[in-house]
């Protein structure tokens, strides 16, 4: 059982498990998270609930709560960048800022690497260089985040009809169902909704 107010120390591996990329992980892992107030208190509350709760989460539930924690941890990284960017690696700081733009607009079909760069007031080239040390380029990061969320949304659906698949694709910013289906199939080797959705 986790003490409610003890500082939260998350190892690099834990952060990677939550899906944070290398830059986010470097900044969050650099110091313990204060859980007495602010976002730290929120994260600690959710983690405590998850470890103490009597209910056993299904795979999909675990993944959904993982997304929630990932978003909050990434916001912690952003707060640190905003508070004191001087002491941080500039590439990492830029990636963390970019990730916040991405999380906030994942459902927007107009979210592209160009839009992220424009929002941050930098060139696409600079953005790409900053993402160079993470495992994925910017556009790939956006696509895989969307697909991952869509996949988990479809996991617990006993009957994924074409309408359900279309709604889930739309929810995560895919322009049109066929685009979503193709991207999903390329990434996971199967179609969303286990083949019930027809092409176009």
């Amino acid at each position: 059982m986790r003490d409610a107010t003890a500082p939260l120390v998350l190892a690099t591996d834990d952060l990677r498990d939550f899906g944070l990329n290398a830059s986010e992980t470097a900044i969050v892992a650099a110091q313990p998270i204060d859980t007495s107030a602010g976002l730290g208190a929120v994260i600690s509350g959710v983690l405590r609930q998850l470890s103490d709760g009597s209910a056993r989460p299904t795979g999909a539930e675990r993944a959904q709560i993982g997304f929630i924690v990932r978003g909050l941890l990434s916001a912690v990284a952003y707060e640190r960048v905003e508070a004191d960017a001087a002491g941080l690696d500039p590439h990492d700081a830029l990636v963390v800022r970019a990730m916040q733009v991405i999380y906030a607009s994942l459902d927007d079909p107009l979210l592209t690497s160009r839009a992220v760069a424009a929002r941050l007031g930098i060139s696409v080239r600079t953005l790409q260089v900053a993402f160079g040390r993470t495992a994925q380029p910017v556009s790939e990061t956006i696509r895989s985040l969307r697909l991952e969320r869509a996949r988990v949304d479809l996991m617990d659906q006993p009957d994924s009809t074409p309408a359900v698949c279309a709604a889930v694709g739309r929810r995560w910013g895919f322009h049109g169902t066929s685009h979503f289906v193709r991207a999903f199939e390329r990434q996971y080797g199967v179609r969303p909704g286990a083949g019930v959705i027809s092409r176009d």
Partner: protein
Amino acid sequence: MLLPSNASCVLVQMEARTLVESPAYRRMSRHSFGDVAMSRIASVGQSVTALLDEIPAQAPESTQIQLVESGELILQQGAQQTKVRAGDMLVYDASRPFEFLYPGEFTTTIMQVSSRLLDVTGGDLQALASRPVASSSVAGGALAALLHAAVRNDAALSPHSREALSRAVADASRLLTQDHSTRRQARVASGSLARMSLEFVHDHLDDPGLSASRIAADFFVSVRTLHAAFEGERETLGQAIRRLRTARARRLLADNPTMEIRAVAESVGYLDVSNFIRTFKGAEGMTPAQWRRRQLGYETHGPARGGHA
């Protein structure tokens, strides 16, 4: 007491009436996180009516998720009545008329989210509102933890953190609403609809609004499908409801010799006592009072059609 309504505050206008003379208190705090508005209320018992004339019927923010931290809440919406105990949550459609009853002192956090964000329809919401969500469930627990932390740390959060928190709350709310409906769909698919319906009836015998349409909504099937599920059974759904109500009434009558007939009727979902007596007599061949007297040995000569063992 009229509570003000504005863009950043929770709720439609509400009219609240306290249920005690004195001392009465009512503490309220409001919080706004991006697309999500919250308010936390602590008060003595009260009855509350939503004044829906104030908002357009298709207002985007029309789903409310409410965590009852202490005390008890009874939501009355249409023919449906749902009791929520401390620690549990309720999801309901705030664009349809509703009333709250808090029988005693309570603390609650009410959150308003757009139905669009949750991807829920009016039908989903009606089914969701028919039973509370336990905070011990995964989704309920996660959302309760977020609400607790959000309300307590409001002052310490930067605008950016609030945005992140609103995304987290939206994700957890969606998990809760989808979880709830998916579970039920899966349950119905795996078991027989007739059997699941009878279990539902058994759990809701005291609910005057118990009906085929209510059960159909709860299991996401049409009323026709529901009735069809009883075609191969020995009795229709309506007969089953009456049989189970009468059976419970018999037990209450026998176990509680001083319980008033009116109270027995209400405990098995009859608001109208004479209707209850008529139904009981149809099944047992005598009125509830006669049945009890006979059961307790006060009456030796039952009527000709004494139908019980």
